[in-house]
């Protein structure tokens, strides 16, 4: 039974944080990951996040990683403890080699302020969502 896709979009993949997740790491650690098998096509990645930090003027950094190679990153800062901020990444790869590819979102907190970063999707300020589209155009 062939799988039918919309013309131009070969497949999509999506994941998000579903439970409260915290990091105190000041170096990048994995947050979200999607592994897909693609043809020789490009992949568009969309990532968005909003989280709180436990320390004043603490910031959170994220990076998009493809098969172990960092591609693009963002950083944002909470003005005061308990407050959040948000950011996003949009990126389109060059044409990939057909096969399995792993897209990862990594995150860490800034090295100077201590505390932690918390992504709590049950709160009013927390989410992290990661969406991929394999495209033929």
């Amino acid at each position, binding site marked *: 039974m*062939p799988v*039918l*896709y*919309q*013309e*131009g*979009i*070969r497949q999509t993949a999506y994941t998000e944080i579903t439970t409260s997740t915290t990091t105190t790491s000041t170096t990048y650690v994995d947050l979200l990951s999607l592994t897909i098998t693609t043809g020789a096509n*490009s992949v*568009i990645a*969309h990532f*968005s996040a909003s989280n709180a930090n436990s320390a004043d*003027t603490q*910031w959170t*950094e*994220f*990076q998009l990683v493809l098969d172990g190679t*960092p591609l*693009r*990153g*963002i*950083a*944002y*800062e909470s*003005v005061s403890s308990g407050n959040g*901020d*948000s*950011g*996003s*990444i*949009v*990126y*389109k790869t060059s044409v990939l080699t057909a096969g399995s590819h792993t897209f990862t979102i990594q995150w860490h907190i*800034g090295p100077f302020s201590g505390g932690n970063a918390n992504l709590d999707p049950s709160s009013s300020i927390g989410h992290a969502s990661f969406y991929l589209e394999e*495209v*033929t*155009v």
Partner: protein
Amino acid sequence: MPLLGYAPYSSLAPSLTQTSFLELSSDVSTTSASFVDLISITIYTYGGTCLVTFSVSGEDSANNRNLYFQLVMDGTPIKWTQFRTPNTQNSACLTATVIPAEGSHTFLIQWRVSANTGQIRPVTVNEEHAALLIEEVAR
């Protein structure tokens, strides 16, 4: 015409006609308090819905300054976003859908600062970037 091996989901389903993606490839800065060009894409569209996504992460040379961004289509500003930089970088995004008539159209992101120097440094700072994606979906 569908590509070999990619059958359309149905003749009535929207399909992705084209995508265009551009991002900053060099470090840039501005001291302008009025909007100046940052990044733009000109494409020929076919009457479909264009999904526009812009993401940015950058900073200002001083604390507690704002960076403002606007999406301009064919010379007309249509959407705005901004962020404030308490001490370090911050981030913003913008999405919009428009249905331009078939023809050539320019999607432009402009930016300005509230004061001091705004910076986006994708070359020297891993956590800074600016990227613009256009996806045209046939109706």
